[in-house]
């Protein structure tokens, strides 16, 4: 076993690191930051929905955490005719 480890030389830690990176990338968008992201999502949607009918399915809110800054991404698909009507109103 030791010889095998020596030959592979990789150890188990890199596997742990990779698994964590994949898992947390998912959890941070799905649940991890859910408190803040979910609240922001709801409130942003409420504001926009006052003026434009939006499809809840076509809304993406993401939060990316970096060392110095975090970015909040809000991606909302607006139906064309609704925007046109809003612009002419």
């Amino acid at each position, binding site marked *: 076993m030791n010889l095998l480890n020596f030959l592979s*030389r*990789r*150890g*188990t*830690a*890199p596997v*742990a*690191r990779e*698994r*964590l*990176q994949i*898992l*947390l990338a998912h*959890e*941070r968008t799905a649940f*991890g*930051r*859910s*408190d*803040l992201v979910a*609240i922001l999502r709801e409130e942003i949607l409420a504001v926009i929905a006052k003026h434009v009918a939006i499809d809840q399915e076509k809304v993406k809110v993401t939060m990316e*955490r*970096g*060392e110095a800054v975090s970015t909040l991404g809000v991606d909302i698909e607006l139906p064309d005719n609704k925007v046109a009507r809003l612009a002419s109103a």
Partner: protein
Amino acid sequence: MAKVIVVTSGKGGVGKTTTTAALGAALARTGQKVCVVDFDVGLRNLDLIMGAERRVVYDLINVVQGDAKLPQALIRDKRLDTLSLLPASQTRDKDALTDEGVARVIGELREKFDWVICDSPAGIERGATLAMRHADIAVVVTNPEVSSVRDSDRIIGLLDSKTERAEKGERLEKHLILTRYDPGRAERGEMLKIDDVLEILSIPLLAVIPESEEVLKASNLGSPVTLNAPQSAPARAYADAVRRLKGETVAMTVPSEKRSLLGKLFPRRAA
């Protein structure tokens, strides 16, 4: 201006209470007035780690509910007169802690001490969110192990949303203390390296506490490791952490135990 620190982790058993006691004692040794507060209602242990388990009369819940005054519940450390402990209740339920009561007690502690260090319970429930609620600084304790890192990530999310500072849009300082680190195993690829954990959690490093027999020895005796064995590797790492908390710039090293020749030839393995 007093600073309130929360020591938190999500996962249990990673070293929150050890870290609270060690940081508290190390800070108090520098002459600062320090109070360590146990928020783990029902499973209190900070009193035991501090060696004050037989001196508890009143506790945090008594003070929160107004059954005792804060000075009646505070236990002055016998070794360091600048160090005090506010124990948790062992019999009551954590629901006995009210938001307003905790806010009032933290406010009173801020007036009496330079540093208030809150030992959070494990988990992400109300006890943990109450412990972090009024913090100016969060110390996230993590082991170089997958479940601990994952739970720390979750706790960092809560710190960014559930604390008073986060809600006001103010900055909450967050720091990582990596505990039970074994440089040899990390080098051999058997343990996550410091940089791996830092890259994943992206919060600044406050200290790396090496795996050490001294931590258990100190807890056996009811003495913070920074008092019981100040020259040991973990105590030196905690002392460096305290200097950083006080704003000093200290080069980041992982202290190691001085081993005798025999010890080098026959190293004992940690379980």
